[in-house]
């Protein structure tokens, strides 16, 4: 992603390649080209470009992709630390398990 890369070695993205059927839906929803498909299976190509939005995990029918999805927002972290309730806007961190509906 060139100059728009964030911190290194920090995201919670995981992929169980044995569960992956190569349907490729995760590739369609990822906004930063983190995943690629090769030989019928998907793998993580640009891990540090992941923003943990959770779209891939949400859309994996096999539960092969998992991530602790959350909004990368400093204000949300502060609000949660101060015990504030969330609103319809994104400014609180909700406790999110690995996203794998």
């Amino acid at each position, binding site marked *: 992603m060139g100059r728009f890369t964030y911190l290194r070695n920090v995201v919670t993205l995981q992929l169980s390649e044995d569960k992956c059927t190569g349907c490729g839906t995760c590739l369609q929803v990822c906004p930063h080209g983190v995943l690629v498909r090769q030989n019928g299976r998907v793998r993580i190509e640009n891990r540090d470009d992941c923003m943990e*939005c959770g779209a891939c995990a949400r859309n994996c029918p096999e539960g092969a992709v998992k991530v602790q999805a959350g909004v990368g927002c400093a204000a949300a972290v*502060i609000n949660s630390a101060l015990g504030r309730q969330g609103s319809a806007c994104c400014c609180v961190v909700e406790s999110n398990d690995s996203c794998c509906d």
Partner: protein
Amino acid sequence: MSRSRFDQPFVVSTIWTPAGGVPRVSTELKRRDKWGTFKARWSIGRMSYTVEPGLYALGNPNDGSPVLVTANYKMTFDSLRSEVSGLDAWLLVLDTNGINVWCAAGKGTLGTAELVERIKSSGLEQVVAHRKLILPQLAGPGVAAHRVKELSGFRVIFGPVRASDLMEFIRTGNRATPEMRRKTFGLWERTVLIPVELVDALRAAAFLVPVLILLGGIGGSGGFWFNALHQGLFAVTAIILAILAGAVVTPVLLPWLPGRAFSMKGLVPGLSAALAIVAIRGWVAGEWPGLVEICGWFLMLPALASYLAMNFTGASTYTSLSGVKREMRIAVPLQIGGAALGLLLWVGSRLVV
């Protein structure tokens, strides 16, 4: 399907369907629409800038026309309809509490459940013969395509990130190029986010004004109120420069500023603000501050700019929660410490006279 959907200013006529009357929506943005967008960008009324959820028509759709799904934030709604002039399609507006697609999807508000519910309540099944929906790609965090299929029978097709690519996407048989699937964060995209950040920062800083004026009166030569005005107002100016550094300069220069962490990126603009305020006192007012006071500014202003820069993560398009937490663990104590020490030095510089 409430009556109020038809009463909205962008509705131009009604089209009759097996599910009843559906409002037809204009694809042309009027001055009031553009003014509404402008106000929202400046944090005026943006938390209640909505459109009624439900089914709408674009152009002259029939039972084979595509169904586009969107959020009920009016800015989103406007940016979509203005990009599809000439297209015959149905528009299913979900109730996202007036929040845009990506934020609502991240929260789960623009989610599988709301989509399935809105399909049912709108009577969409009676309106189209096919069972396909085109969703914006950034609905991905909230909508599980395979679950929507199970629960409603409708197949979700993820369209492009940008509404401006939608016509081309549809024209090429619902095919997206790799570029259509990338969320960019170019200069204009960053710039339009600045007014809200700036207004929010200034609103919060307004509380600091009386505090700084009172603290400015402490110590030094001259009477309390003379100093309060003189030093206090100067301090307010300095804070405003720091706010500009963190909330305006940092977003504009984002990719070119050193550091990956946003709190780090705010430092160079913050240090520049400190340099500027000292230079203003020295060259313009002719009174160079002492070393202690200079240190005070060089601690307070970068701390504030760094904090505001860090807050920009929430408006950005590529920061992860894990990354934000990591940078905050280091940055926040430093920001608090730096600001507190800087404030102490600023007041202290006038006490040791």
